[in-house]
């Protein structure tokens, strides 16, 4: 027990050091104020202790100058902290363009992880160091939260939508990940390990158990669910052609457009009537309950894989998916 008694978490991601620096700054500022104020109170208490029974305090009622001073100085300090912490937050929130995708599904009470080329794992997450990794998180049931203390990041995993979390591991090693959002009986059992490996080890590991890639699993689903009866590549179907739409703007019925990112594709499958593509009838049935979250992720991966082959109405200079990595909650 006592030989394994850390007081500070390991720093193993590109943001960990930045978060810790802010933490130490806050500790210093708080320590300064806590100690100064406490000592002042003690000093006053001793210095101005009652010396005889009839003594009263001095007639002092306040000082506007002091009030302004001790509102303005803390305000300035906290605004500084606000700016710094916001910079860190924005960094934590925006995955770099070259982030590698991994898909995570949380369910009571386990984590299922799928790598794009098909390797799957449970309650283990293998990642290469030195490479930004973007997790797309989905939940089958209630809210969970994917939390890696050594990386100083977490994100809620919310049913009904995709959320994302990114990090870049900096040191090979095994690090805990936890479910941080209470999710029922075995919440505290919903934990696992991140295995951060050198890129070579990671490649070897990936090759060791690669199965069918996510996109080809998605393609199978696409056929099983008969999506292809309407969404045909030859634009003769009753639904829009999906080839090449990934990451491109889609014009909507009733005006407006939307970028076809993961979230939009997910929504189009489970709640197709929410936003209809311009020129089509709202005839697509909902697949809510017919596809698991893993299946949805596979379908997204499949549609994404069409992006490079199809010939959609090209929109020059259109933003790509990485410009809008944040699934916009509806």
């Amino acid at each position: 027990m006592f030989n394994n008694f850390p007081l500070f978490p390991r720093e193993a991601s590109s943001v960990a050091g930045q978060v810790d620096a802010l933490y130490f700054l806050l500790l210093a500022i708080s320590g300064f104020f806590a100690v100064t104020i406490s000592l002042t109170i003690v000093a006053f208490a001793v210095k101005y202790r009652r010396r005889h029974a009839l003594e009263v305090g001095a007639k002092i009622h306040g000082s506007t100058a002091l009030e302004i001073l001790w509102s303005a100085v803390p305000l300035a300090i906290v605004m500084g902290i606000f700016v710094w912490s916001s910079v860190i937050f924005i960094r934590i929130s925006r995955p770099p363009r070259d982030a590698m995708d991994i898909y995570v599904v949380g369910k009571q009470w386990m984590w299922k992880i799928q790598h794009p080329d098909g390797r799957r794992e449970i309650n283990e997450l293998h990642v290469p160091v030195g490479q930004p990794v973007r997790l797309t998180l989905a939940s089958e049931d209630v809210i969970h939260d994917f939390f890696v203390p050594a990386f100083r990041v977490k994100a809620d995993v919310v049913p009904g939508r995709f959320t994302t979390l990114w990090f870049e591991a900096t040191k090979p090693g095994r690090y805990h990940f936890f479910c941080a959002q209470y999710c029922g009986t075995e919440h505290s059992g919903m934990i696992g390990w991140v295995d951060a490996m050198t890129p070579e080890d990671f490649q070897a590991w990936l090759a060791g158990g690669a199965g069918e890639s996510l996109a080809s699993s998605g393609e199978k689903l696409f056929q099983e669910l008969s999506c292809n009866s309407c969404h045909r590549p030859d634009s003769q179907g009753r639904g829009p052609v999906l080839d090449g739409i990934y990451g491109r703007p889609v014009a909507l019925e009733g005006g407006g457009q939307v970028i076809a990112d993961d979230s939009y594709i997910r929504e189009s499958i489970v709640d197709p009537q929410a936003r209809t593509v311009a020129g089509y009838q709202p005839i697509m049935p909902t697949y809510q309950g017919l596809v698991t979250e893993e299946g949805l992720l596979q379908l997204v991966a499949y549609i994404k894989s069409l992006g490079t082959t199809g010939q959609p109405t090209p929109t020059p200079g259109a933003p790509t998916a990485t410009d809008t990595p944040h699934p916009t909650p509806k």
Partner: protein
Amino acid sequence: MDAIDATLPPPVNYLNAQHGIKSWLLTRDHKRIALLYLFGITFFFVLGGIFAALIRLELLTPAGDLMEAETYNKMFTLHGVIMIFFFLIPSIPATLGNFLVPIMIGAKDLAFPRINLLSWYIYMVGGLFTIAVIVLGGVDTGWTFYTPYSTAASNTHVVLTGLGVFITGFSSILTGLNFIVTIHRMRAPGMTWFRLPLFIWSHYATALIMVLGTPVIAITVLLVAAERVLHLGLFDPKLGGDPVLFQHLFWFYSHPAVYIMILPAMGVISELVAAFSRKAIFGYNFVAFASLAIALIGFLVWGHHMFVSSQSVYAGLVFSFLSFLVAIPSAVKVFNWTATMYKGSISFQAPIMYVFGFMGLFLVGGLTGLFLASVGLDVHVHDTYFVVAHFHYIMVGGAIMGFQGGLHYWWPKIFGRKYPEGWAKLAALVIFVGFNLTFFPQFLLGYLGMPRRYYAYPPEFQVLNIMSTAGASVLAIGYLIPAIYFAWSLKYGELAEANPWGAKGLEWTIPSPPPTYNFEETPVITEPPYNYTPEFVASVTAASRPEVELG
């Protein structure tokens, strides 16, 4: 003792004016209703404390060994529900507030005495629902009732618990309304707004939050019940709802609710600092307006509980900014209390020990609030033991310390008896030490990454958990000591004078315990609050202790 001793309480006071259980259950006297509430919250504090003890015992070892995971989850849920809704929210306002608000403004009672009694019954009915939940097998959603777990997954008594919270909410609303109307309409002649004791200002701000915020939580728990029972698609995505919507509604009340818990304690501290420094509060207007500022800005920061909930990045930044702003009025109060002591005449009687305790713990609680408001840092510590430590420093270290300080200060007034000073000081020390031992390690645990609401945990967290559990036993002793001497004092305590502390304030101008209608004739106020003068002190000291030598 001599029957004609001037220090004896008047023969008839609110405690002995009427006898029998019926005279209590049907009373409309705000002071008796305060005691009814004191009874209620003490009961729930003990109950909530028992759950806390079981939680800490389970966490002594990394493995889950004392109870089942599901039982543990029920323990922390019941602990939270009871402590928040049935202890902390009513604690100071419904007891000290009920007792003192009319007296401090020179009124005979609250504006609506019957509604005041009704509020207690509503509170007790809500409490009965909660007890029914315990008897029937408990509830496991956490006090936060997050959806869709609460509406679709949990198979415990969520609806019954929600109803208890819903019902008890009305008692809060009624108390708030009563305070607002009373403070507006029933002030004695000459009691202008800026002659009000700061205790009144903080209760006014609290009452505003109670009235404006509580309906939102009431509706929110009803919606949870509606989705659970009728399967309306509100929050569960499988039914077309939005789970994050629930969090917005919940925290829209529950963040301001944390100020319902701390503002009254701040009011107590203002009174005590002034009384034991025999000095006017430094920057009265600033302290008064800080209460209002906290109440108002407090309604705009709820999203800081949702930084990682999939709320947008921009929302996160805005809520972070506003959370930093709300820290300023709290800081201003602390500075003013400290400055009040400057050139004061400070006496070290028992209540001020609790003030010192409050200051130390509230400082830590408030400053760690800045860590959490720092959105980039909160991503790491959110939903870990860091947050648990933070809010216990505020709510146990701040609110309960303040409550106990107030109890020690006004106890002689309320019951007409004194408690043993030495024991009271010792208890303050034991609580302070026990509290820090319990909760300081939790900051370290949180930063290390231990998530909250964990029944079992990896072994590297054990040492800090053992410290925390050890601290909790010290803390329990700290709470037990006052329970014993307070109970003892009711019968054996030395009789209290009208003004045992030599303090300013209308409550000290009337006998201890006060007569049923407080004032024989309506007082007329001619001076600002906390107007300590040597003549005043000489007069009260002479009146209460004729044997004290003057000069």
